[in-house]
């Protein structure tokens, strides 16, 4: 089993709709982060939520964290074609050198 697993694996919606992606993890964490990656490109950091936070907003992004269920969700409101990308959650464990463990990602397609 793997830390940081997202669902769905792929999501296709119409422009203007909201997109929700979920992430589950298995170990205790310091924080959970979401990244975006356009095809073949680098990782763009979107938002970080600490283990003692439950919800965080940044522009059109809303992240929730439920440490009792070891899960997080990323909501993108009023989606745009430019939001088309892969989205990854990443966790860093409480112990160790703070390596990030990434999930498999959700491939989001926004249809105009």
């Amino acid at each position, binding site marked *: 089993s793997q830390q940081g697993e997202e669902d769905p694996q792929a999501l296709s919606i119409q422009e203007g709709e909201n997109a929700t992606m979920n992430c589950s993890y298995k170990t205790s964490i*310091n*924080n959970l*982060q979401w990244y975006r990656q356009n095809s*073949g*490109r*680098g*990782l763009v*950091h979107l938002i*970080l939520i600490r283990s003692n936070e439950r919800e965080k907003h940044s522009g059109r992004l809303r992240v929730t964290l439920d440490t009792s269920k070891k899960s997080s969700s990323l909501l993108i409101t009023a989606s745009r074609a430019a939001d088309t990308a892969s989205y*990854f959650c*990443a966790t860093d464990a409480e112990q*160790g*050198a*703070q*390596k*990030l*463990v*990434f*999930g*498999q*990602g959700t491939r989001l397609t926004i249809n105009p």
Partner: protein
Amino acid sequence: EPEVTQTPSHQVTQMGQEVILRCVPISNHLYFYWYRQILGQKVEFLVSFYNNEISEKSEIFDDQFSVERPDGSNFTLKIRSTKLEDSAMYFCASLPRLNTDTQYFGPGTRLTVL
């Protein structure tokens, strides 16, 4: 805003050749990382480096891999004898100290092994 840089952006090499991927972390950062992403797959941790030594490494990071911080600014990943399956995007990241905010990622080096 300071950023992590990586060179080259794309490296093509023949199987069995040695490659060195270079990264310049943010100057006051203390922790350094390499990750890789095989095309279409997730990002995987390779190694973390602190105080001039490896602090943690994954199963992927076998004897063919090594890291070095030769001059206090560069952070390099060497693959001694590349295999086809080493073809991937390699990301460097740095962190000022533990238990701070996010790691800062470089743009990546795409390694193609022929």
